[in-house]
Structure formats: C-alpha cells, structure tokens
C-alpha cells in the first residue's frame, strides 16, 4: 500500500505543478529548438539560437518576464491557439495562409529560402542569384522553367507544414516527389545520406549543417522570397491578443533602432538578416 501511496503522491505533485504554471503572468514564447541557427538545443538541453537570444532582448525591452516553451513544428499553431504559449518565435514566415489563423508582428528577420543538394550532385540549374515570387514576370518564369527542368522527377525533402512545402505543392516548378519530415534535422540527414535528391529550406539552415557536419551540401538555384515564401519572419500571436501584438511591434522597433537585431543576426547567421 505504501508504494501505491507514493505513486499517487507523485502523480498529484506533477498535476499541481502543471496547474501552478497557469497562474504565473509571464509571457510564454513557443519555439521549436530544432531549426538552427534560428532556434536549436545544445548538449545540456538548453535552447539556443538567434530567436532565443532575440526573445530575451525583446522581453527586456517590453519589461515582461518570459519563458521559452518547446514545441514541435507540426503542432505550433494549434498549441498557440490552445494557450500552451502566447507567442511564436520559431522562424515562422509571415504568409497570407497563416494570417487567416493568427496575427503576426512586423517582421524581425528575413528568411531566404534555397535548394540544397549533396556535393557532386548532377542537379545544376542555371539561374540568376535570386527570384521574388510576388510578381512573376517573364524573366522569373524562365528561372522557374529552368528549375522545372532540373528537378523533374526528383525527390525533394522539406519539413512538414512549411512555406517550402507549400511552394513545392504549388506546382510552380512542376511535379516533383515531395518527401515531408518532422524536423529540418531529419531533412538534412536524408539529404546527406543521399536518400533524397535535394531539399528546400532556409539557406542558413543548410549553411549551419555544413558548418557542423563538414561541408557536405551545396546550395543550388536562386534564393527565393515573396509569394508563398511570405514576407519575412515575425512573431505569431493569437488574434485576440492585440495588446501583446502592439507590445511586440514596438519592442521590435526599439531593438532595430538600437541595432540589437543586426548584432544578433551577425552573431548567428554571419550576415545582417534583420529587417
């Protein structure tokens, strides 16, 4: 019986602890912790990365106490809506589709997407350096056609529920085999092992992998922005929380003016991705 009592006591303690969380009035910020250099985890299990640092800076400016909450990417928006946390800072691009469900602050950084292949791959589309999909003109169409040719019938890996998946689904570069993964780490693993022919994600995500795993990957094709790729990365907030939204907006203004965002971007990305 004693053992049973102990078990019940433990169970109750955990329950009470989880209830306790509800009554603290700090801002909880959800992040993935698996999308370096935006957000990741180190060997001690601590969250690190550009957005982790930035979140702390913004909270300092807003004079809020903040906690970071880890959340898998595929449940990010539902978790925000169910109240697991109050804001998303997880490399989430501001897109029309997401705006239907949640609000976004102004963008705090630019996410530039790019294809990557294994070094020595035969996929070498000849394209200009960058393409914006907000307004597709005949030059852009040529670029897309070149990509269509290069990737015809190839397997391309992306993380589930990302702008990158939406872009491949949109058919702008024709029909490709889309494989979806839970995390970008898994995409990188399968790209490095040669299971997939190419991957599409933030260019810095591949560069980060190269820096750690010894330059196995190579970026190909143009960098993408606009259209399905959205307009920069912002803080996601529930539609009802307008006060928190304006808090974040003015905090981002302040951080930008003080050069904090630029400084953090250079530290984590190696270049100024602030916006």
């Amino acid at each position, binding site marked *: 019986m004693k053992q049973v009592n102990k078990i019940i006591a433990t169970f109750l303690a955990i329950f009470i602890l989880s209830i306790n969380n509800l009554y603290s009035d700090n801002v909880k910020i959800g992040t993935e912790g698996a999308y370096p250099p935006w957000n990741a985890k180190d060997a001690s299990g601590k969250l690190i990365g550009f957005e982790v640092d930035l979140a702390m800076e913004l909270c300092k400016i807003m004079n809020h106490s903040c906690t970071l909450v880890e959340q898998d990417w*595929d449940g990010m928006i*539902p978790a925000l809506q169910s109240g697991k946390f109050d804001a998303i800072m997880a490399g989430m691009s501001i897109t029309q589709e997401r705006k239907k*469900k949640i609000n976004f602050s102004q963008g705090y950084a630019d996410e530039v997407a790019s294809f990557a292949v294994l070094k020595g791959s035969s996929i070498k589309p000849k394209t200009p350096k960058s393409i914006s999909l907000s307004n597709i003109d005949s030059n852009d169409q040529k670029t897309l056609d070149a990509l269509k040719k290069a990737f015809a019938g190839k397997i391309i890996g992306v993380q*589930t529920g990302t702008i990158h998946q939406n872009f491949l689904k949109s058919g702008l570069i024709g029909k490709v085999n889309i*494989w979806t993964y839970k995390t970008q780490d*898994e995409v990188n*693993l399968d790209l490095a*092992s040669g*299971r997939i022919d190419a991957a599409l994600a933030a260019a810095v995500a591949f560069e980060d992998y190269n820096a750690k795993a010894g330059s196995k990957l190579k970026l190909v094709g143009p960098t993408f922005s606009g259209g399905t790729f959205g307009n920069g990365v912002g803080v996601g907030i529930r539609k009802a929380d307008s006060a928190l939204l304006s808090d974040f907006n003015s905090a981002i203004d302040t951080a930008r003016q003080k050069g904090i965002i630029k400084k953090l971007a250079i530290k984590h990305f190696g270049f100024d991705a602030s916006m």
Partner: protein
Amino acid sequence: MKPILDNLPDIIKSAILTIELTVISILIGLLIGFIFALMRISKIKFLFYLSYYYSFVFRGTPLFVQIFIIYFGLAQLEFIRESILWIVLKKPYWCAIIAFALNTGAYTSEIFRSGFEKIDKNLLEAANSLGLNKFKTFLVITLPIGIKRSIPAYGNEMILMLKGTSLASTVTLLDLTGTAKYIISTHFNPVEVFVFVGSIYLFFTFLIHTFVKYLEKKFRYY
C-alpha cells in the same frame, strides 16, 4: 467534413498503403516467426540462442526505436550506403517493412513456440508407440495442432501489426496516419480528421477479427 472530402483521394490512397504495409509485413513476419520458432525448439544450441536473443531484443524494445534505427541509424554508416543493401534501405517503404516484419516475426515466433511446446505428452507418446519417428511426429502432430492453437493469439498479433504500421508516418510515408497529419498541417480540424481515420483503422481491425474467427471455426479441432 470539408477537409476530409477535399482530401478523399489521398485518404483512399493512404488506406491502400496501410493495407499493403500490413499484409506484406505480416506475410514476411509469418515466415520469419515460423523459422525462428523451429530454431527455438531445436536441440542445436546456436540456433536456440540466436532465436532467443532475436525475440528478446525485438520484443523488449519499442517498434518506434526499431524503425528509427533501421531508417536513420543505418543510413549513417558509409559502408551500408556503399553496399548493395542501400538499394533497399534507401527507400522508406522497405525500411518500414523490414522493421515491421522483424518486429512481428519476433512475436510470431513466440506464439508458435508456445503452441508447439504445449502439445499433450500423451499424444507424443502415442505417436512414438505407433512407430513414428521424431520428424514425422512433428509433421503430423505437433505442427498442425500447434498452428491451430496459435490462431487466436496470432489474430491479436495481426491487429497489433496493423496498428504498428502507423509508425510508417514517422519515416516520410503517407499512410493513413501520415495523411491525417498532413491534412491537419494545412487545415486545422484535428478532431474530425483523426476520428475519421480512426474509424477506418477500426474497420480494418474488424476485418482481421472476422477473418481470425473464420479460421478458428474452420480449424476447430477434436
């Protein structure tokens, strides 16, 4: 219902994939299980221990871990990627089937083993006194009775395997569970999608159940 109706073709396709994964894994697992059960009752020490540890490891660890070792773990080794095995291991479909078949094979071997071992001693003695040798006794007594006795437990194992195939969704495959998750990542109606897909699984469970009941009836002994 809109997200379900919009994606109905994908759901049907994924249901077929789920059936495919289940049936192929069960068939391969049946063969593996049978062979390892024979090894388990054999008198050769090496075969016995091989079978014993195979079943010990695969029944003692979660299928989730097994499929990740086979899919992500083995792909890490360069000599595997350069070997002929890579043709198979490169494909998530085959990785899933290998993991499922090895897993269900371990459970199946235990089911058959206990079926073979529980044969009435008197029956075996009777066979002996009729002048049947060991091999023949096994063939005409142990094997048919053991298999018949294994049917109910094996039915449960088939249902467990059907449920286990949902893990295929963790290695990029769009089976029923994978498709459900995909629909949710674009629409945001988790409950109805999961309930709908869940009832498809229940229907499959029901089919297996009916099939097993039919087998039991057909092979009722004594």
